[in-house]
């Protein structure tokens, strides 16, 4: 199977896979233990949660930042854009202790394109011409980076949820009021999916705190601006298929 990233391969394949990644344990932020303000959701709050992912898709996309605490001293930070209508995204990557070779990433349901610090010597070692990008299959189980990308992509849905079931789901609760980037927010926990900071006025998603696809690492996604965005990947001639450098690429990851 070719992994050349033409525009078609960057188009969506399996939204359900990405959405499934949003099933995350609650409480991973460490600051939403049952406290004095926690209480069951009101109907209006349940409706806000039920609507939020659909509203994201309606908006089209977002500018976002992501902060992930991977382990002791290890972090992944992203700053980028997501187009939820096509499941395409782009981000600049700043990582410490893990995924340290990646500087930028494009992704879709079908492919992940990496710009890596070590790509030029890898290609030279393989006897290939230099390109700034390498493309590979998504690996939401094995790659920490891909788990985070799946969470970002999963913050939108083609259908509203049922607020009665949201309210009834064990763990769903109002946690507290808060302020995000100067915006009044209500902080709600949705069952085991995670914690949502919603604009107190219009219900739009300001921040999501959950976990990665394998439920091992906390992820905080801030939607800095929710708006329509267009993500165009690099032209195919600037991309090398990882299959062409499989051995040296695997060795690079191992180090």
């Amino acid at each position, binding site marked *: 199977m070719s992994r050349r990233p033409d525009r078609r391969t960057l188009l969506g394949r399996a939204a*359900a896979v990405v*959405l499934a990644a949003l099933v995350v344990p609650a409480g991973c932020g460490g600051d939403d233990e049952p406290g004095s303000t926690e209480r*069951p*959701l009101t*109907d209006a709050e349940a*409706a806000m949660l*039920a*609507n939020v992912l*659909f509203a994201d898709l309606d908006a089209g996309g977002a500018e976002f930042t992501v902060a992930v605490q991977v382990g002791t001293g290890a972090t992944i930070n992203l700053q980028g854009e997501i187009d939820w209508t096509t499941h395409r995204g782009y981000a600049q990557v700043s990582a410490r202790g893990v995924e340290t070779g990646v500087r930028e990433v494009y992704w879709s349901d079908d492919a992940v394109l990496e710009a890596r610090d070590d790509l030029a010597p890898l290609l030279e070692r393989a006897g290939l011409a230099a390109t700034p990008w390498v493309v590979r299959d998504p690996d939401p189980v094995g790659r920490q980076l891909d788990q985070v990308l799946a969470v970002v992509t999963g913050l939108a*849905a*083609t*259908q*509203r949820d*049922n*607020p*009665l*079931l949201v*309210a*009834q789901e*064990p763990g769903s609760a109002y946690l507290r009021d808060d302020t995000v980037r100067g915006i009044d927010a209500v902080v709600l926990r949705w069952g085991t999916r995670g914690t949502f900071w919603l604009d107190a006025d219009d219900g739009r998603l300001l921040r999501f705190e959950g976990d990665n696809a394998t439920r091992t690492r906390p992820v905080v996604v801030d939607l800095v601006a929710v708006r329509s965005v267009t993500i165009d990947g690099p032209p195919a001639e600037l991309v090398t298929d990882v299959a062409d450098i499989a051995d040296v690429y695997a060795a690079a990851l191992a180090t």
Partner: protein
Amino acid sequence: MRIRGPHRAGETCLLVSSRRPRKVSEKLNAAASSLLRSTFRGAILALVGGGLVACGADADDQATVRRVPEQYPTIQAAVDDAREGDLVLVGPGVYREAVVVDVDGLVLRGTDRTDVVLDGEDRLANGVAVTADGVAVENLTARRYQQNGVLFNGAVGDDGTRDPDAVYGSGDDALVGYRISHVTVHNNGLYGVYAFAARGGLIEQVYASGHPDSGIYVGQCKPCDVVVRDSTAEYNAIGYYGTNASGGVYVVESVFAHNRLGITPNSQQMELLAPQVETVIAGNLVVDNAAADAPAVADGFFGGGIAVGGGTADIVLRNRVTGHPSYGIGLVRLGMFTPEANTVRDNVVTGNGIDLLYLPDPTIDHSGANCFAGNTFVTSLPADIESLLTCPGSRRPVGPVAWEQAPPPPGPDYRDVPAPGPQPSMPGAADAAWTRASATPPAVDLDTIEVPAAP
């Protein structure tokens, strides 16, 4: 039983039902017989008590007609002023409001089904959200709400709050008594008509289209004691959806066409009270539920007529089911639930990819006491299904059944599905007597139900 509530000012009326239950002669399997006994009991109750309807304006009656917009500028203002048993009568107009009804026994009626429109403008939650007992919604249209056209919600306590430990929908911990009649619901964001944790309902003369989930949904109730009849659901993801809706559920003599899936009683863990048991699906016209121009539900189905998804002791009787590329009638697994003790009898099931399908959990190598008999069909999986899964149902060996659904095609945004044309209005709506919704729905006489004619 006397039903409180006058009807027309200065007029008193007394109606006595002449309906008598017919002898039930069906000999189905044990589960089916149990359901039919329930039907018979219901019929007797209706004859003895439920058929007597008093509708007089006695001097001591407090019930009142409250007219919108003549007396109240909004429907909600009239409801807020209303007392138990009142009629809120709504004249023609477009009402951009989300009405909440928490008054027992209220009747909310439009004078014209087509011209009395509740419009959510894709920003309001529910057209009518009912949390009180005995409420009826009649003769109006509810469109473009973010959630539901009309919602009957029993998952709330008497004080208006939700107990996180309650098992809503079980026994009396439910909304009791509801009726919806001559109502059009379309282009709402979840369901057209939604009865959740509600018992004792009548859903009739409903038209539902353009919903990305189901046109009519009855969920999380045990017993439900609800009758869905004389209704039509088209161009929805699913026509009728009954998750964990158990006991005394009758979906009869209705039309489910051009949805992605016609009818599906089913068991799911996402709601309480699983597994689903005891639904009767009888005398329905279920055709061409393979509409790519119907909105798609997430994790969707496509091209199925009637799917009993992990249900138990359901009866599928004398329906006409045709035009489904996946299957006509299927007793199929759903999640962790496998179908058990269901009866599929005397249906006309032709022109489908597979007419009759039994698809249990892969670990099941027997019939699960499910049975098929007397159906008119051509294809089945397993082959010769009526010889393998005979009625009455018993545990018979069945080899592995392999079937995979093709990926469903994408669907349109539910907001873009064309609105339906005018539907028949309630006769004499402006002047007709009114009565609160009974907790006991009318009896369904299965003996009188026939396979509907081909369209």
